């Protein structure tokens, strides 16, 4: 089934935040944000700006009726800076005016003076200075200390992974409209309508039932609108309440890139020990997460780094410690994978180090250590694994050794073009690691004409969650999809929602929808069963007809619905779902946090132009564990999109902050995401086709995040290609592997010294 929004998408008729028809009298907001990364606000002069034509108001922290606080996990982030600023781009004042231009022009007239304070941009420096968001956490399995003596080979190293800008093509934005009795409606481009609602209530001093948040769809989210959409929703609501007029703010791209947080950069140290048979005996890692200036979701992201520190491998002795380090960058936040990719990169680097030192392909080590069912993850959960199944199907379909041989042959033939290949197995846990967030509700109405309306807490952002909700209802009711509509995500219809995140929205909301539809169906069946004098469980619905013991009856879907209404039987249901058997004890760092895991294996192949240092990806060949996909078109699309986004993170997407904490890659001209020419020439995604039971909706496993991590293979494929040209290259593990880093690795240091000698000459 196609994405249910595809018709309006291709006709340009889908409605996004900036497309909502405006209520007359609507004002436009713009933010005056900090030009310095750390400082005390000495003075703030808004008088000239306030006197400008069209300006309706300028608001600062002093105007906030409730609490000046937007921190979700930890209350450590002000909406508008009061006395201090902690990052470049921190909102200080909000201007509202009768046009976007007037608002932005007024922002330029605001004057502020700062007493500059020391700036930290490096997480290790932050850790040294004790600037931690939360106390460090350690996951432990076995005893690494004792295990080192059993190791034949021990390797140590250090890695850096840079952050990643979400670059949803629709920027952040919100539109707030005051309602009667002091209530407010906020249209928000958010993955977390409840977060916007809760925070708006807190800041405005309202109760949550006075704040309606409505989201039709997002033009991309990728985690960037999970927590960070809140600021804009709340700012618009604040201004709307204060000026008593509707207020809209759709950020410009540069504002968005400057003021919002990104994927966390990480610095890490590793130590890995293997025995003679190449089994990983022990693994230690220390992660320094660059959290930015406030907690945001960093503690949860850090936790998932620890959960995924051994990726798809079983290691009997593990010790992994993570520090969430406070720096003067915008608070970093969720991004597809949520800390998992950063954890996986480090163990892949450790394996690559071992392989390089031992002069064997990394795949020899990877294959020998894949986690098997019954093995224990470092956090205590027992694996139900598909890791070996995915790997061996990958080998069966694509031939790992054959590909490796072809590449060796190619490299022998070509002096200036070198190919590299890397295997990338993945294992990703599905569930919010904060157990309480694993709950969802679905409200299903069947109308008297037989049409169905569904409301859930899930937010559609392109991933097709609404299509899956519709499929659930269409399957349970056995009615055509045209009879079903999925409504906007609205906090008045569905309360206390978890954000659409953690790849879990289809499962949680889908299961709730399944329950709601099943309950309604049961009522309808009972009604017919009483009439037909057969047991209700003998009845089935097929294509709008009711069958008893397989025999067609004279009851149609329409007749069932009408009869239920006439008999005063409810045609509506609000169902609640929470996955069973998940728990986690953070005091012991042990438990069973995930409903299930998603597995897969990718082979990534690249060709490097060793003259120019540029490269093209030849192919990404995957076997992915979909469970049993309920929508192949959508799920394959998630895989392809995730792979390319992962490759982007590992290759060309380079966030550059200067020493002053200013983002230098602050626009699409300086921050490059993959274009159509830079994606792999071939992406093949084959399904594992497993028959194992799983707890996903219709056995169709979550698919949002896991494929991104195949992209990590891109880094290691590039590294292998560079080594084929320059076997003695010492390449620091420092992603992304830009053309610059490739060229600098291809050509040995003496060449550069030669250049420096030349520079010294007058």
């Amino acid at each position, binding site marked *: 089934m*196609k*994405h249910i929004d595809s018709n309006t998408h291709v*006709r340009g008729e889908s409605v996004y935040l900036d497309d909502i028809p405006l209520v007359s009298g609507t004002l436009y907001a713009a933010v005056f944000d900090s030009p310095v990364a750390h400082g005390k606000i000495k003075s703030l002069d808004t008088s000239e700006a306030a006197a400008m034509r069209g300006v309706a108001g300028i608001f600062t922290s002093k105007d906030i009726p409730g609490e000046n606080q937007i921190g979700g996990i930890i209350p450590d982030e002000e909406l508008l800076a009061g006395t201090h600023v902690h990052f470049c781009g921190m909102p200080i004042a909000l201007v509202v005016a009768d046009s976007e*231009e007037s608002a932005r022009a007024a922002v330029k007239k605001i004057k502020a003076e700062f007493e500059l304070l020391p700036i930290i941009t490096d997480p290790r420096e932050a850790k040294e200075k004790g600037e931690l968001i939360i106390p460090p956490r350690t996951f432990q399995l076995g005893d690494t200390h004792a295990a080192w003596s059993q190791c034949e080979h021990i390797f140590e190293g250090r890695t850096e992974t840079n952050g990643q800008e979400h670059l949803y093509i629709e920027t952040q934005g919100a539109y707030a409209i005051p309602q009667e009795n002091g209530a407010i409606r906020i249209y928000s481009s958010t993955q977390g309508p409840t977060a916007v609602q809760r925070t708006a209530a807190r800041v405005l001093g309202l109760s949550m039932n006075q704040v309606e948040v409505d989201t039709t769809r997002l033009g991309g989210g990728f985690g960037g609108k999970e927590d960070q959409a809140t600021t804009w929703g709340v700012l618009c609501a604040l201004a709307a309440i204060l000026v008593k007029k509707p207020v809209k703010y759709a950020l410009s*791209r540069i504002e968005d890139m400057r003021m919002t947080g990104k994927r966390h950069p990480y610095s890490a140290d590793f130590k890995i020990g293997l025995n003679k048979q190449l089994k990983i005996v022990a693994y230690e890692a220390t992660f320094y997460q660059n959290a930015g200036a406030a907690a945001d979701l960093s503690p949860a992201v850090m936790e998932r780094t620890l959960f995924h520190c051994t990726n798809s491998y079983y290691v009997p002795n593990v010790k992994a410690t993570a520090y969430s380090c406070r720096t003067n960058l915008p608070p970093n936040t969720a991004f597809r994978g949520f800390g998992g990719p950063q954890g996986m990169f480090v163990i892949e680097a450790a394996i690559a180090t071992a392989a390089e030192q031992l002069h064997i392909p990394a795949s020899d080590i990877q294959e020998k250590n894949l986690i098997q069912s019954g093995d224990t993850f470092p956090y205590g959960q027992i694996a139900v694994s598909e890791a070996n199944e995915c790997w061996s199907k990958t080998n069966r379909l694509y031939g790992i050794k054959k590909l490796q041989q072809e590449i060796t042959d190619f490299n022998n033939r070509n002096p200036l073009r070198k190919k590299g290949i890397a295997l990338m197995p993945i294992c990703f846990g599905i569930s919010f690691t904060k157990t309480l967030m694993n709950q969802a509700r679905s409200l299903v109405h069947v109308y008297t004409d037989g049409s169905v309306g569904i409301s859930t807490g899930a937010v559609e952002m392109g991933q097709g969650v609404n299509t899956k909700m519709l499929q659930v209802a269409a399957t349970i009711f056995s009615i055509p999809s045209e009879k079903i509509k999925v409504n906007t995500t609205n906090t008045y219809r569905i309360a206390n929602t978890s954000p659409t995140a953690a790849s879990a929205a289809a499962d949680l909301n889908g299961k709730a929808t399944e329950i709601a539809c099943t309950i309604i169906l049961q009522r309808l069946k009972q009604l017919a069963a009483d009439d037909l004098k057969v047991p209700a469980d003998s009845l089935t619905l097929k294509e709008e007809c009711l069958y008893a013991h397989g025999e067609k009856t004279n009851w149609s879907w329409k007749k069932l619905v009408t009869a239920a209404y006439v008999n005063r039987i409810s045609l509506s249901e609000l169902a609640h779902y929470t996955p069973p058997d998940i728990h986690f004890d953070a005091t012991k760092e042990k438990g069973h946090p995930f409903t299930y895991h998603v597995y897969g294996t990718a082979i990534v192949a690249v060709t490097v132009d060793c003259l120019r240092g540029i490269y093209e990806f030849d192919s990404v060949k995957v076997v992915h564990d979909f469970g049993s996909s309920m929508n192949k078109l959508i799920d394959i699309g998630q895989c392809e999109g995730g792979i390319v986004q992962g490759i982007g993170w590992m290759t060309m997407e380079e966030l550059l902050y200067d020493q002053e904490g200013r983002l230098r890659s602050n626009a699409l001209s300086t921050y490059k995401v993959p274009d159509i020419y830079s994606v792999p020439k071939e992406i093949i995604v084959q399904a594992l086709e497993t028959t194992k039971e799983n707890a996903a909706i219709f056995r169709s496993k979550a698919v949002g995040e896991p494929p991104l991590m195949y992209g990590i293979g891109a880094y290691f494929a590039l590294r292998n290609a560079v080594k084929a040209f320059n076997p003695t290259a010492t390449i620091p593990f420092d992603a992304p592997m830009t053309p610059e880093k490739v060229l600098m690795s291809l050509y040995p240091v003496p060449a550069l010294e030669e250049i420096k000698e030349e520079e010294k000459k007058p």
Partner: protein
Amino acid sequence: MAADESPGMVLLDFIRYHQHLAGTKIGCREGDCGACTVLVGELIHDELQYHSVTSCLVPLGNAAGKHIVTIEGVNPVTGSGTASPGLTPVQKAMADAGATQCGFCTPGFVMSLTGFCLNDTEASKENAVAAIDGNICRCTGYKSIERAADKIVDLLKKRKNENILQFVTAQKILPEYFTGIKEKLQNLAAGKKTPALTDTAALDKRPHFVGGGTDLYVQKHDEMKEADIYFLFNQPGLDSIHKEGNKCFIGPSVTVSDLQQSPIIQEAFPSFNRYAKLVSSTPIRNMATIAGNFINASPIGDFTIFFLALDAQLILSDGKTKRTLPLRKLYKGYKTLDKTPGEHIEQIWFELPGKNTRFHFEKVSKRTHLDIASVNTAIFIKMNGDSIGRVGIAAGGVGPVPLYLQKTAAFLKGKNVTEQLIREAIKIMQTEITPISDARGTKEYKTLLLGQLIKAHFMELFPPLIFV
């Protein structure tokens, strides 16, 4: 339609916020994402031709007398507003292939692919992909979009000798009303008047000369809104490319796409399309002028480097007096020009490469396409028997201005090409450049890279020479 808005306002704002046509999206406002792509139809030699542009960089003045097509103008009327609206074959291919996820970039892709259907280029996958090279999608990874493009190519292959507009309307790629556009534009053109470039009264106001606006509107779209603008595209005759002897003359409103379509250029530079593919994207190339690239004075301007190697000459005019200036003397310092505020480029000319001449252009950027170069370079060599006669080497990204490498050229002159010679030349080159570390790379990288690209020049031009 007639509009009272300022001609300096961008077309995108006019479409979205004045005409309330919300299908054209805002992604970046700097021509780098393609979400705002629309088609522009105009009469060229009395033929109606369409090309794609990013409406965020188009001043309203450049839309005058043109047919501007947004997604709303492409949508079939049938079933509009219902649950199952009509789709054009392009839209259907996108929807069926799952080539739309969040949907925000989708109208831009639909417009670019529709523009491809209106082009006279060969119906091939390569050309279809080239048509969407300016559209960024963050969701799909492009593979489903490629599959949709395949479907469209299959459809276009059915076209035999029919007129394009007849074919696309018959196939319902575009609505029927497109067949009447030519006549409407002819009527509009009849009433159009633009002051000539010799109109001193118009020039005395010191207007901004705007060609495609692709740099100007990235940098200062706010201040351009109310600026006094002289629109070069509205002035006939400024887009000519012609030959006099072995000299090629280029008018000030000639775009990169114009060069690509010129038989003179194609003959002189057989690899021209390969070079152009490294420069921005299809919609930007449709707007960006060569003269604008020179005057923008970016030290990294791709076509500045290209023409610098050819030692191109500029004819500058202030409306009263003219002078000729070599392009290499235009740049006095970072973004400082040997040009008075009243002067504009009236013509560009250069000597066409002929027998015994060799030319090559190289560019490396973080992303190979649709990106600003880390380093770019071009070389022009006139051979004197087996040895190098005249040589021009230009390099961008390695100094405050586009560099014409005089010493390197002087060193090479009169010598036979050997590996050793080029290695020596690279050392001399390194004394001529002053790269800085910035978002496009460290100075060490740029220095190494330029050396590599010089090797690439000679490997391309003097096979089987190779540097390993």
